[in-house]
């Protein structure tokens, strides 16, 4: 079942006098449970595509349907609802809230979704256990390594049980071992939960994990292939 449908989606940015076309008539469909890599060189439009799918930004043209709803018609609050309920994010720079500990960071999206206290605790502990950080729940981000922080971010992204997790260069700030560990965890959770993972990367080792690879260049999709 398609959870993401982009049709002729374009997005341009103006920097000074120069207009850059970040997305150029992109059409893409992603089904539930996919483990998809968006690959391409810097400036190819991977991050812009993720931001538009993630309702963080709006396209200039085209339609974007997430879980059956045209999100280009939503206002700021509507997009916030969509992000909160069906989308999880993992960022290159980990993006944890620095004043909250690991437990509280994972709990935050559940609080935003109004999940009850008992279920919150179960989900948070289950996910922190799944990413191997059950013993670090009271540590704040500055007391965790980069790899540990990214694992907390993975747990946080999955906490509200989203339809999809969007990861922008999730291993770019990690060493090889931690990068592989993060990818292994994402892959395992993808298989266990059925949550679709779409990650932007230009790291060949990360691409190797993907079952589908969408190749981008100059804002266009130039190749879309699935592993058999």
């Amino acid at each position: 079942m398609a959870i993401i449908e982009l049709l002729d989606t374009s997005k341009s940015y103006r920097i000074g006098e120069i207009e850059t076309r970040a997305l150029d008539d992109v059409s893409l469909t992603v089904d539930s449970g996919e483990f998809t890599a968006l690959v391409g060189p810097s400036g190819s439009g991977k991050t812009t595509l993720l931001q538009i799918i993630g309702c963080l930004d709006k396209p200039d043209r085209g339609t974007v349907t997430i879980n059956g709803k045209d999100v280009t018609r939503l206002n700021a609050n509507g997009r916030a609802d969509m992000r909160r309920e069906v989308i999880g994010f993992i960022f290159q720079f980990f993006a944890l809230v620095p004043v909250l500990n690991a437990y509280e960071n994972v709990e935050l999206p559940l609080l935003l979704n109004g999940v009850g206290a008992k279920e919150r605790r179960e989900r948070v502990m289950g996910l922190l256990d799944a990413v191997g950080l059950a013993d670090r729940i009271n540590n704040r981000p500055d007391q965790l390594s980069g790899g540990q922080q990214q694992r907390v971010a993975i747990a946080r992204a999955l906490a509200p049980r989203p339809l999809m997790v969007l990861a922008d260069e999730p291993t770019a700030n990690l060493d090889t071992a931690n990068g592989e560990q993060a990818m292994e965890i994402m892959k395992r959770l993808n298989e266990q939960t059925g949550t679709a993972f779409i990650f932007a990367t230009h790291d060949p080792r990360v691409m190797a994990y993907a079952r589908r690879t969408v190749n981008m260049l100059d804002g266009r999709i130039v190749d879309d292939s699935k592993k058999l």
Partner: protein
Amino acid sequence: MAWTKLWVIAYRDLIRNRRRTFFTLLAVALGLALLIVLNGFIAGILDDALQNSIRLQTGHVQVRAETYEDSRRSLQWKDLVEQPGEIAAQAATMPEVAAATPILWADTILNTSSESVGMQLYGIEPDSAFYDPIRASLVGGNFIEANDRGGVMIGKRMADSLGLKLGENVSLTTINADGVPEEGIFAIRGIFDSGVLVYDEATVFMPIAKAQSFALTGDRASTIIMLLHDENDADQVAAAVTAPGLQALTWRELNAVFLETMGTAMSFYWILDGIVMLIVAVIIANTLLMAVFERIREMGILSALGMKRRQVMQMMIFEASIISLAGIILGLAIGLGFVALLTQNGFVMGEMAGSTPTIPLSAVVYAKFAPETFAWLAVWTFIIALLASLYPAWFAARLEPVKALHAS
């Protein structure tokens, strides 16, 4: 989202930059403390001046001839009260009245061998309780006696400035009831130091019987002055003692000019209060804006997680609430501490006390607790602080998630 978590984030954001939070909190505290001390001091001045005026000049109720005008100090018989002793005695029987006594007022010039000074002559019943404060402030000689035909009392400040000593003779000149200048020589029997400079500088007391004969007023008086146990009974007593041809005035009417002057002065203090609160508001707004600028990426993260603009605003307002409430508690402690100190030790007014003739200030003024005013100041400080947080909160809430996430 549970508000408790927003409070937690707000609180932890504040302790993340402890130094900045502390100085902002201190600014709120000192601002409020300044307002409390200022207003406690003003309340003290108002009370001191009003009580001095009532105690030493106006009393709570006065009965005068209908035609008597305060500004003219007329000694014409038609402007004076006849048989004042009887009216005073009758008033004194009322349970609300603590003391009632006739007074004859006259403008007079005090002459020494080298100087002449304009003064107010008070013809008084020396035995009246109304003069207990003056009796208690005697610093030399004796309080004049009712049958003394040749003695007066003057204030220490006047005695010092003219170089007059106890027992020394002075000449007093007044325009009598017939409009003719009258001069008499009087010995200084006593010197008082009431602490109220306008009295200590410009009042001379003599027994009313002598004053009446000196000014040729017969047994008439300018007024019958009454002190009450409770100032709130003034209207009731005034209604009871008035009679045809007489007017009864309460302390509010008798101090109308003073109260009006103080009302005008208070509006300046309110402006000052407003300025201090605005400074506090600017400091809070600045701190919160700094906090937002420092955490733009964090705002982006919260937004990416689905936090709504309203919730971001709430979080920032919570931060302002925490700083303000902590600052207000500290400010109340500091402010009330200083007011308590000033209620005990007072503030030496020095020359300032005598600088405004319509405001009879004591040489040492004590602050006064004004709980209602202090409570309003605290409430307004809180409201202003919250209003000041609206712009930073709005700014944070309007951040675009994509731009915020990529902020450096």
